[in-house]
């Protein structure tokens, strides 16, 4: 007799059963799923408070079945700090794009990490401002054409793409910092583990946790979803190497 059929992959409980508004082939959906899976894995849904940022991911509350507060552009890390300080037994995460986190909000990002706030930031780096139509981002690659760098990013004009994970990994308050991508089955698994670890670290109160996700933006890149995935692999990863850049073993005891 054949064993009963079992569901081996299903939508995480924390992710509402509604279609994403993201463009076809956008990696936000994959990152959303992995965050929801991490929340489910540690049974955190009922004590999680999400912080939505300004950008394509602003509708966080439409997809995550958790309490959510919306932050002004760039301020998600400060808002998350406030939430955590008021409710230190809750799990607090913000989800931010590269314009939000690495440009207008870089001060909040760095100081939140430096204070070792026990929160998790999921950082989506797709090298452009997605929601406003593909303008130059702090992470735009050299030579990359965007709607405000029509001749390609030139370091004489716009400086260099910023590597946030490396910067944050240097800070004492950071407990975990990793960069991941979804380009291969191996990378997908690594990404899932990194996001889980970030939430696990927060649960264990080890300090600030940060996961940078290299993400495709087929619409603003003008590439198909499949070609966009190749661009992440062939152009982004060489400049933004994947891996765990900081992993604290235990909470600092001073």
């Amino acid at each position, binding site marked *: 007799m*054949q064993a009963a*059929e*079992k*569901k*081996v*992959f*299903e*939508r995480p409980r924390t*992710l509402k059963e509604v*279609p*994403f508004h*993201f*463009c*076809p*082939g*956008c*990696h*936000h*959906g*994959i990152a*959303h*799923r992995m965050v929801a899976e991490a929340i489910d894995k540690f049974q955190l849904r009922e004590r999680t408070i999400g912080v939505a940022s300004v950008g394509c991911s602003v509708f966080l509350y439409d997809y995550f079945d958790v309490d959510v507060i919306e932050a002004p552009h760039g301020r998600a890390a400060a808002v998350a700090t406030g939430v955590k300080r008021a409710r230190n037994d809750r799990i607090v995460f913000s989800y931010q794009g590269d314009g939000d986190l690495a440009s207008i909000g870089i001060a909040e990002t760095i100081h939140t990490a430096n204070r070792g706030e026990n929160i998790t930031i999921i950082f989506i780096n797709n090298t452009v401002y997605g929601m406003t139509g593909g303008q130059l981002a702090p992470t735009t690659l050299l030579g990359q054409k965007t709607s405000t760098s029509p001749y390609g990013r030139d370091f004489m004009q716009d400086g260099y793409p910023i590597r946030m994970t490396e910067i944050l990994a240097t800070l004492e308050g950071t407990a975990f910092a990793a960069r991941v991508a*979804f380009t291969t*089955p191996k990378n*997908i698994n690594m990404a*899932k583990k990194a996001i889980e670890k970030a939430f696990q670290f927060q649960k264990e109160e080890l300090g600030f946790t940060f996961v940078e996700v290299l993400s495709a933006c*087929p619409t603003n890149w003008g590439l*198909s*979803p*499949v070609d966009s*995935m190749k661009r992440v692999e062939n152009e982004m990863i060489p400049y933004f190497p994947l891996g765990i850049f900081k992993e604290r073993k235990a909470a600092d005891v001073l």
Partner: protein
Amino acid sequence: MARIEIKQSLCKGCALCTTLCPEGLIEIGKRLNESGYFFAVFREEGTCKGCALCAKICPDVAIEVWK
């Protein structure tokens, strides 16, 4: 025997799943869904191993896997 279920209403036809399926069992179909996308379809030919790579790469969480 494993199989997948693609929720056609969630699918946007990005085709990322078609690139990862080791057995080549997924393709973009010829029909449009309610949102106007040619959605991915599963060819039920019996060689699916239930590896779930298609589901893991799907940006729209449109795939469920049964084993």
